[in-house]
């Protein structure tokens, strides 16, 4: 007597900002099967990087793979090229890169949290977080001249310097943000309706996290110690006070808490950077054309981002391979939907913070 219904979510749906299509096979509203199509945003960036653009313009192109972690994309690419060109970046540039990377993480996490709340039907919280997020957006605009597409990283360093008074302004704003974030933590842990929506929903166990090679906040919420910031040495994360955040529950709530704690950690790192921006050049001139292979990984807000670049000593590259975070989490999340209630689906989806834009490239 069990009859199933197909509930679509996407490709155009109010709770989705991007086109992705899920088709949930549901018994009543319990999900028993998921079918997904993630290819709506495929534009052909990988190919264009090797045929349409010279290697020095590719950084601006790959930034448009994703608007949310544009900086991570351009940075990963740039670092890969720098490895091929043997450029040593100045310490100041490295610090500024980390600053932008962490600011981006903060705004992206805030966006994710607010979107998760919106998907859970909590409009007021959405508005609250989005309102406070504007502070970060203003900082970013101040630093880079644009709210989203920073175009800040250049091969050999960064494009813009930071002045002392901007630094001071930023520190002030970050302090306000920190207070707000502490307020969110209180809200996320104590609001009963949110705990009904988030606690125990969409859980991924540690073993499953290993099995599905989960990454980013998704994996860390399940207790998997994976954070590329911990595994790389091209950026001075260790000395800036990076701490890995993990949780054990693996549910939506755990992911939210992880994000909130990461925001706090990032804020701390930003403060450390701004307290002592080293002197030096912001950009080092590079010579020659890239040749050879390099593979670079970075921690984007949603997890590990990998660039593989192969050059052949001409201005055109041979291969640019982008492995994006959301792409790796897709198997894990089709799995998580099983057995959940359709009413939770938008919130679960939002809690993964998917970015199909980079998934399909």
């Amino acid at each position: 007597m069990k009859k199933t219904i197909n509930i679509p979510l996407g490709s155009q749906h109010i709770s989705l900002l991007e086109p992705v299509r899920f088709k949930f096979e549901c018994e009543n509203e319990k999900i028993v099967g998921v079918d997904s199509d993630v290819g709506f945003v495929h534009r052909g960036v990988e190919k264009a990087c090797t045929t349409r653009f010279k290697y020095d313009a590719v950084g601006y192109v790959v930034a448009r793979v994703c608007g949310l972690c544009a900086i991570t994309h351009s940075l990963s690419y740039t670092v890969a090229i720098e490895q091929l060109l043997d450029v040593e970046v100045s310490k100041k540039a490295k610090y500024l890169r980390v600053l932008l990377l962490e600011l981006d993480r903060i705004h992206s996490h805030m966006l994710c949290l607010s979107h998760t709340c919106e998907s859970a039907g909590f409009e007021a919280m959405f508005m609250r977080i989005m309102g406070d997020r504007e502070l970060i957006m203003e900082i970013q605009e101040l630093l880079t001249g644009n709210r989203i597409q920073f175009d800040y990283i250049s091969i050999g360093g960064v494009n813009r310097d930071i002045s002392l008074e901007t630094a001071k302004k930023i520190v002030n704003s970050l302090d306000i943000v920190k207070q707000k974030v502490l307020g969110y933590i209180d809200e996320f842990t104590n609001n009963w309706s949110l705990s009904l929506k988030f606690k125990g929903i969409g859980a991924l166990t540690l073993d499953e996290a290993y099995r599905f090679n989960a990454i980013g906040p998704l994996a860390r919420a399940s207790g998997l110690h994976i954070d590329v910031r911990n595994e790389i040495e091209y950026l001075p994360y260790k000395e800036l006070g990076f701490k890995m955040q993990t949780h054990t529950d693996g549910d939506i709530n755990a992911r939210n808490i992880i994000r909130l704690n990461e925001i706090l950690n990032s804020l701390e790192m930003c403060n450390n950077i701004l307290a002592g921006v080293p002197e030096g050049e912001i950009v080092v001139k590079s010579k020659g054309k890239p040749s050879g292979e390099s593979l670079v990984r970075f921690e984007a807000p949603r997890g590990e981002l990998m660039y593989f670049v192969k050059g052949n000593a001409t201005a055109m590259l041979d291969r640019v391979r982008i492995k994006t975070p959301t792409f790796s989490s897709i198997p894990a999340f089709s799995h998580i939907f099983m057995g959940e209630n359709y009413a939770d689906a938008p919130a679960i989806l939002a809690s993964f913070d998917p970015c199909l834009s980079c998934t399909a490239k």
Partner: protein
Amino acid sequence: MFSLNKYRKKSPWILHYNAGSCNGCDIEILACLSPKYDLERFGVINTGNPKQSDIFLVTGPVTFRSRERLIELYTQMPEPKVVVAVGSCTCTGGVFRDMYNVEDGIDIYIPVDVYIPGCAASPELIIDGVVQALDILEKKTKEMEIPFKLFKEATTKKGITSRRESALKIGENDEKN
């Protein structure tokens, strides 16, 4: 009789569709709804439902797979409606121009009324665009606007008759009556 046209611009409900953008402009649209910019001042509601929307905010350069959906949603919106292309890549293809899986800009498929440049188009620009769209909305007639180009025949070939076409045909008949 007093004219109802002027109320159109006081209650623009929007539908947002991402036709392959990088999310940059999408999150700026979201930011427009946030307290700092608060599009609801203009009576904007993000309905998410083509049948109840007046303004179609599109982002992205139209990837192959989203062509159909773009037209489907467009035809499901009742007239009068205004299409706003948000962001450089939506207007002209932007950085994605000439990539193999995109069409350069949405105006290849549907008539666009407002082009908002910028990469990403900042919230102020989006508000400018929406305000511009309101004026256009007020002046529009209720005449049916037809997409410039339908999606390739491949879908009809397989026995699935394209819904957009049927929608359009019925629209035409209605006009004759």
